[in-house]
């Protein structure tokens, strides 16, 4: 077992990113898709913090701060939207959103 | 303002004026449009006779348009032997086209606007010496054509025809544009004069010529109706309203040919050497294939459309010969066919409107009922099969002479065969329509059949304007209504007269064409090996 280095953290973050991507692609529930997106953003956060630590630059952490803020805003809007859709259609599934297919 | 610019701008300005006139002032619309084109025609005629044969480039007018380190273009018009005749023909046909459109009732504002746009565009294209503006003006006609076929066209297939003609023309134009841009990217200019000067010292690299020449050839060829990219033409003409068909078959097609003469031949001698045999074969295709197809037509318009394609075969033949006589003949055919095609479609349009059909076998013996239009039709068809006395004869014979020396015997045989085929279907059309038993269906056919309804009085626009209103109404009633409608023959007469004039005195044209044709052929056959130098001026 070796002392974790930058690569270790980055690999974890990369795998987390891919997990999130998998969720976005494979899951059909809007809320879960959304959670997967959060996972992807978090992966980026981890990478930034790791870089910040190993490169001794705080800038990355500031960036994480921004990302968290943006994610929170995105979630707020997204959940409001999902609620609005649910009120209209009683569904929260990607497949059911098909009024725009031709 | 230079005379050429004023010729180009007159119809365009008229178009804008027309756009400001409301649709219910129909009479004013017509008058303005006719006046505008009449002025254009007059100016063009004056210019034609002011033109000094052998005087090189005249009436030159250049305005910088885009002055940029890399992109530089300028508005440049001028007249030489190659285009002066076409400018005249375009102006005359434009006048005639507006003249025969008197009967348009639906959305007249839009109609005249679009028609004038086409006319202005055609004149601009002919006059342009900058190839960008040539393209620019030529493409002005594209959408108006589409709209006119759709809105005022005829026949069940007009929708299909409108799309087909537009898409074919766009495709051709885009391919040609690619060729042009290829040249432009290489030389930083599209000015014909500058190009020639540039080429004299630094020919285009072979690689460029090898790509650009076929682009130009097939691109512009499609615009002309080169076989086998021609199938849009007959259908389009048959479906288009009379004026559009006149402009297209008569005038716009020639723009493609003019472009070939202007750009393809003089600046790409290598391309010429490589591709002229191909053009020859395809030109023969036009002559023979389209001729045969024309022979099978039962509809006058389709027949005329295909025959006009067959005529283009002569033009291609003349270009492919790359000889002074051939090129001179080509230009001669271009001018005369412009007039002829316009005349044919004008008169067939008249028959369509008044007889309600153009099916050849339904007609018969109508010459007696409508002597004037019958005669005009005979004249047009005769001219179409190359009867001496009409300008076409002169042109086609000249092309034959030009081709004689260049091509093997079977080419001549084929061309001759094309003429014979033309004779066959033209004469048969005359026989079926005008001679023989009168189909009782057309017993009531008259030159000016029903007295057309009097136009509604103009709205009362105030006390002082009452008199004007009243006068206008009287004039309108007189011209459109029926007191004397003989003037409505004027468009046909103009076209026929000029056809005859150039037929009996082709020298008027040839003396103007010949010096430039010589120059052109000299450049086209100037096959200096270019592989050694690749003197592209790099953009800064």
């Amino acid at each position: 077992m070796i002392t974790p280095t930058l690569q270790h953290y980055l690999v974890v973050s990369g795998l987390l990113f891919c997990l999130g991507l998998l969720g976005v692609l494979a899951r059909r529930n809007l809320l879960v898709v959304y959670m997967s997106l959060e996972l992807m953003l978090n992966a980026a956060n981890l990478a930034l913090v790791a870089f910040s630590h190993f490169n001794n630059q705080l800038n990355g952490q500031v960036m994480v701060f921004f990302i968290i803020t943006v994610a929170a805003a995105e979630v707020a809007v997204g959940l409001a939207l999902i609620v609005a859709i649910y009120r209209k259609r009683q569904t929260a599934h990607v497949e059911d959103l098909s009024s725009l297919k031709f | 303002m230079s005379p050429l610019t004023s010729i180009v701008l007159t119809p365009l300005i008229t178009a804008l004026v027309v756009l400001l006139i409301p649709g219910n002032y129909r009479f004013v619309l017509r008058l303005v449009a006719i006046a505008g084109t009449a002025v254009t025609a007059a100016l063009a005629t004056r210019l034609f006779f002011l033109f000094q044969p052998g005087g090189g480039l005249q009436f030159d007018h250049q305005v910088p348009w885009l002055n940029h380190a890399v992109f530089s273009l300028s508005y440049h018009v001028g007249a030489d032997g190659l285009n002066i005749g076409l400018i005249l023909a375009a102006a005359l046909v434009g006048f005639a086209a507006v003249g025969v459109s008197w009967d348009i009732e639906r959305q007249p504002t839009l109609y005249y606007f679009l028609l004038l746009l086409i006319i202005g565009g055609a004149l601009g294209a002919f006059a342009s010496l900058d190839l960008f503006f040539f393209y620019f003006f030529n493409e002005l006609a594209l959408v108006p054509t589409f709209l006119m076929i759709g809105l005022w066209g005829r026949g069940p297939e007009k929708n299909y025809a409108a799309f087909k003609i537009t898409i074919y023309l766009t495709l051709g134009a885009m391919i040609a544009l690619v060729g042009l841009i290829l040249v432009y990217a290489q030389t930083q200019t599209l000015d014909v004069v500058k190009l020639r000067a540039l080429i004299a010292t630094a020919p285009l690299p072979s690689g460029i010529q090898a790509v650009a020449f076929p682009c130009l050839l097939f691109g512009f060829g499609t615009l002309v109706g080169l076989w086998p990219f021609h199938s849009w033409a007959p259908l389009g003409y048959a479906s288009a309203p009379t004026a559009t068909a006149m402009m297209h078959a008569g005038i716009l097609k020639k723009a493609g040919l003019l472009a070939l003469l202007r750009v393809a031949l003089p600046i790409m001698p290598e391309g010429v050497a490589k591709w002229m045999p191909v053009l020859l074969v395809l030109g023969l295709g036009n002559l023979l294939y389209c001729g045969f197809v024309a022979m099978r037509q039962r509809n006058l318009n389709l027949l005329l459309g295909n025959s006009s394609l067959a005529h283009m075969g002569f033009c291609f033949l003349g270009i492919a010969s790359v000889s002074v006589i051939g090129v001179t003949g080509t230009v001669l055919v271009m001018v005369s066919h412009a007039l002829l095609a316009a005349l044919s479609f004008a008169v067939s349009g008249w028959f369509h409107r008044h007889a309600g059909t153009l099916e050849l076998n339904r007609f018969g013996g109508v010459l007696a009922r409508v002597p004037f239009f019958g005669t005009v039709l005979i004249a047009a068809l005769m001219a179409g099969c190359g009867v001496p006395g009409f300008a076409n004869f002169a042109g086609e014979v000249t092309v034959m002479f030009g081709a004689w020396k260049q091509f093997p015997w079977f080419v001549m045989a084929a061309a001759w065969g094309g003429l014979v085929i033309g004779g066959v279907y033209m004469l048969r059309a005359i026989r079926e329509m005008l001679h023989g038993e009168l189909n009782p269906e057309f017993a009531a056919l008259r030159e000016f059949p029903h007295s057309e309804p009097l136009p509604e009085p103009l709205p009362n626009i105030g006390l002082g304007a009452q008199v004007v209103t009243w006068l206008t109404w009287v004039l309108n009633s007189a011209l459109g209504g029926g007191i004397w409608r003989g003037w409505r023959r004027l468009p046909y007469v103009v076209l026929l007269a000029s056809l005859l004039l150039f037929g009996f005195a082709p020298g008027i044209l040839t003396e103007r064409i010949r010096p430039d044709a010589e120059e052109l052929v000299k450049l086209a056959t100037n096959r200096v090996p270019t592989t050694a130098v690749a003197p592209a001026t790099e953009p800064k």
Partner: protein
Amino acid sequence: MNLSLFQSEIAVVLLGLGVLLADLWLPSEARNKLGYAAAAGLVAIFLYGFRGLLIDPVHVSVFPIGGSKFGMFIQDGLAVYFKQFFLLAAAIVLLMSVEYSSRFTAGISEFYSLTLFALLGMLFAASSNDFVMMFVSLELITITFVVLNSFQRNRMASLEAGVKYLIIGALASAFMVFGIALVFGSAGTTNFEEVRALQKTLAANPVFLVGLLLVTVGLGFKIAAVPFQIWAPDVYQGSPAPATAFLAVGSKAAGIVLLMRVLFGAVPMLTSHATKLLIVVAAITILYGALCAIPQRNIKRLMGYSSIANAGFLLLGVAAAPHEGLTATLYYLTGYLFTVLAAFLVIAVVLRETESEDISVLHGLGHRSPYLALALTLSMVSLAGVPPLAGFFGKFLLLRSVMAAGTLDSSYYLLVAVAVVGVVLSIYYYLGIIRAIYWGGTNPDKSVLRFGITTKVALAICIAGMLYAGVLPHFLVQTASNAVGSSLHPEPVTAQTSAAR
């Protein structure tokens, strides 16, 4: 920090907040008029900004904000050019939304202020000189557009458009954020100029390259380039017309300017090696957009596919790169602004009257309102690339720049061929709309379409713009060229050229 640099941004923020607050005190009938006020404000800012454009066209200035050597906000020729672009677009969109406001059930003044905030994001995007700045301004645009797109809450389609835009937008953000993280980690900086200074060493760093790739993926979503285009048709169709218009013009242009900044401001050397990729993307985008647009019957969906195709054309200039290509892209974008906004102004008026969005609602438009019919026709003609309108000259310039690049790499010729095919295909569907206007069929509704004077004026501006750009392009081309020349640093290709020969 030099506040005078942010004049227009500050003005826009204040305008947005003002509109939001004014809503509290104004009676509900008068709220509609806030759109006029906002548009007037934008026009004022626009005219004021013109000064800078005219007086000092090659003005380059990098103003550091805070400690870094180069600031994250840059006010150069390109930024000024795009700011003017965005301001004009937003002003017209505001006028459009006033006309369309009867379709909103609630919150018209919020619509105006959100439009202004989206504009703010675009203004900052134009001035971004840092990946962080880019991310933040893009997010502002994205989230604002989510709300704008789903503004018609009573229509399912609008909500769906919002949700799709949100999910895909968030996915793009995630890609971009991860990319930025990798870029930051491998370069040690997020500043474009500092990255440029390091690009030689970074070019061999796989982490940096992957990061850059992910960032461009994020931008690709923004401009709807294949394969990141899936959202465009649905979102264009579902969103309210003014939002769609702004999306088509503003958001796309923001993506383009950022793409330019990244590709040519941060990593010009890498870009000059990656042209093949850009060529492929541009070609597929053009073809995809054009082919999918053909069978469409829904106008807005058709415009969605058309916008994909146009994204491809915009990429054409980026792929052809250096100076001329980008100049052409800028010019094309400006023409596109007038053209698309004219189209949507008409569409907004027409759709306001009816629930359907099928092309057949255009039937009889020639009679119902000749002015609208003419405007829509002109806009379609311009989109199709037919003279004398802006679209034609834009395509001419683009093709020319691609062709000029063709002397370096013959795959550019393939791109030209694709572009030609794209234009010919597009003729079909654009003319299909013209046909619908004039002779496509009869519309049971024969009433004369009424619309306000401001729409008339906005349309007149758009038509004038199309004609001006098409007939007298000198000023625009010169300005665009100055903007590009003063701002970006395309790697000089001459060295590469001589090597290739």
